[in-house]
């Protein structure tokens, strides 16, 4: 990497640092984006259909219409993210051209490439990618991701996969921390990751980038659970605008992420939120999105 590229990558990792302790909300219209900003979202994810509707509609799911994304960029002052398909570097080029603040190379959309992810080092704008374990996370970082999130299972309202992914990743990080230095080479081979990134994990006990929770978060309790499990912030997709009272639920989740260990406060926040999104159980899912992009 040239100096300028390295500098840009640092700045992109640093934007993720500013998002920590916050909630990033999926929105499909400028109106929803404003509701999210007012409720305390630290960023919004602009997309045409939230994951629950993508599941319901079926078919191929692609990057959103740039016009719709621009409408959301104009509606709010907080950072705006948008999704492109795994491996679809032209969709990513388009999102960079409209000056998106963060690109999510996302398994929620239909993958455009079943083998290769985007070479994210070739972009100026930052990328966030999903991961189920340490190997996936470090491979995405090697490709240039400057932020990681758990995959979870989007659009289900079921937090079980996000919990599994966060626990798996953190257990693997603890294991790497406890290895002897000379054992890291073999671990890098097994995980299929670059040795320098694994060394960082060994020495620091964390990923070299910010790590958020995503997938199936539907309640303030879900969000606090992910924070107590070690997430640095939370993405909420379908959970807000598929619920009975989006404004109230969104604001409650924001507060629960700030005070994630205060059970009394979270109890109060959980009162009278109206109907939560219906949700689909793990066993009932027809389409497993987490399998996309390893």
């Amino acid at each position, binding site marked *: 990497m040239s100096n300028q590229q390295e500098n840009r990558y640092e700045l992109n990792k*640093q934007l993720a640092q500013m998002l920590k*302790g916050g909630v990033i909300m999926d929105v499909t219209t400028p109106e929803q984006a404003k509701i999210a900003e007012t409720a305390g979202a630290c960023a919004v994810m602009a997309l045409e259909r939230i994951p629950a509707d993508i599941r319901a509609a079926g078919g191929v799911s692609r990057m959103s219409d740039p016009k719709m994304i621009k409408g959301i960029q104009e509606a709010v002052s907080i950072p705006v993210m948008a999704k492109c398909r795994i491996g679809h570097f032209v969709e990513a080029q388009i999102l960079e051209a409209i000056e998106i603040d963060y690109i999510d190379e996302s398994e929620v959309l239909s993958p455009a490439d079943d083998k290769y992810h985007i070479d994210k080092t070739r972009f100026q704008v930052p990328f966030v990618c999903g991961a189920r374990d340490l190997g996936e996370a470090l491979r995405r970082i090697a490709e240039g991701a400057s932020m990681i999130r758990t995959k979870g299972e989007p659009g289900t309202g079921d937090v079980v996969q996000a919990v599994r992914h966060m626990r798996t990743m953190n257990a693997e990080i603890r294991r790497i921390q406890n290895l002897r230095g000379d054992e890291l080479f073999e671990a890098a081979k097994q995980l299929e990751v670059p040795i320098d990134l694994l060394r960082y994990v060994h020495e620091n006990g964390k990923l070299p980038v910010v790590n958020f929770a995503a997938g199936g978060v539907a309640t303030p309790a879900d969000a606090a659970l992910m924070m107590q499990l070690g997430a640095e912030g939370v993405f909420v997709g379908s959970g807000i605008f598929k619920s009975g009272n989006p404004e109230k639920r969104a604001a409650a989740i*924001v507060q629960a992420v700030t005070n994630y260990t205060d059970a009394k406060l979270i109890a109060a926040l959980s009162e009278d939120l109206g109907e939560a999104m219906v949700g689909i159980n793990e066993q009932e899912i027809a389409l497993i999105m987490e399998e996309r992009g390893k």
Partner: protein
Amino acid sequence: MTIAVLALQGAFLEHERALKKLGVDFFEIRQAADLTTPFDGLILPGGESTVMGKLLHELHLYVPLKKKIQAGLPVFGTCAGLILLAGEVIGGSMHFGTMDISVRRNAYGRQLNSFYTEAPFEGIGTVPMTFIRAPYIASVSGDTRILARADGHIVAAMQKNQIVTAFHPELNEDLRIHQYFLDSIRVPATVSSSYLS
């Protein structure tokens, strides 16, 4: 000396890391109950000012903290923290509004325009400056003193007990601006003259 760090959202851990390196005691403010611990200075970190502004009210921190700042509590705001203190916010809403500065939010544009530079800071010398979707200070008034300019804009200022930067000293290894803030608490009357000499 004990420093409180507002830990509602954003990069508060980075400030805590700097304080740890400087050997200063600190604790986090996440709700009103945390205010019962006495403290000598307050750090308002980077993050999203809209989020922090909203949570300050919802968590009943706004009124007590504003009173403390107005009563002279030393406070150091970076980026979003600067916006929280500004008396006028162009492109956003006012929060504490305790400082006589006018600030332009997202002044440089989107993430593509985030940048790193180095520029002189009054009394310290050249310091690293990381701007992330940053604001700048459009103008100062009253007895506000300009501490740094970069790229033709005011990016750091001080007024009595309040120090603000549009950039993020907490993201670099350089601890001199945090030290500057701590020195201003230890010797409030002499900091400006000693640093100027």
